[in-house]
């Protein structure tokens, strides 16, 4: 509704993303995928283009004998990646990520 006053402050959630443009961000995706990369472009769907991307995929396997959960992470880097927004769960500027 009435929402055309300030334009610089964080007034709507997407402002958080806007302020992260050209910064390295952390992105949590569905299916246990995580990305870290520099945010070069995004839209309101959270489609994004990231640069210098590191992707971490976490998989959990069950040991056949002990039935223990084995958590594996696989990492890779990609120079430039378009990310479709529908898989995004959370976005955070990683500098302040503890």
């Amino acid at each position, binding site marked *: 509704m009435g929402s055309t006053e300030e334009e610089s402050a964080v007034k709507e959630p997407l402002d958080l993303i806007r302020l992260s443009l050209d910064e390295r961000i952390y992105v949590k995706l569905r299916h246990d995928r995580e990305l870290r990369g520099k945010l070069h472009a995004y839209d309101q769907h959270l489609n994004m283009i990231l640069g210098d991307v590191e992707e971490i995929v976490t998989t959990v396997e069950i040991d056949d004998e002990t039935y223990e959960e084995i958590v594996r992470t696989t990492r890779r880097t990609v120079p430039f990646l378009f990310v479709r927004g529908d898989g995004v769960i*959370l976005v955070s500027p990683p500098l302040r990520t503890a």
Partner: protein
Amino acid sequence: MSGTVEKSSSATKTPADFLKSIRGRPVVVKLNSGVDYRGILACLDGYMNIAMEQTEEYVNGQLKNKYGDAFIRGNNVLYISTSKRTLAEGA
């Protein structure tokens, strides 16, 4: 049937009123996946996209991560609940 809106009474609040009223409050956001986020609600929009501060991520009740700022994409949100027992709020 349009004139009588009881703004003063906090008992008759629409969901939109509730969402407006909880900005700046400590909240718990539960996602469809079951993951909980606890933190201060900075703002939200009509898609239920959420911006939070001092956010803690809980998976199966266990603290898994902390984020200074966090944007949560609205489609993942199951509910938003006010919480009294986070961080710097006393009462």
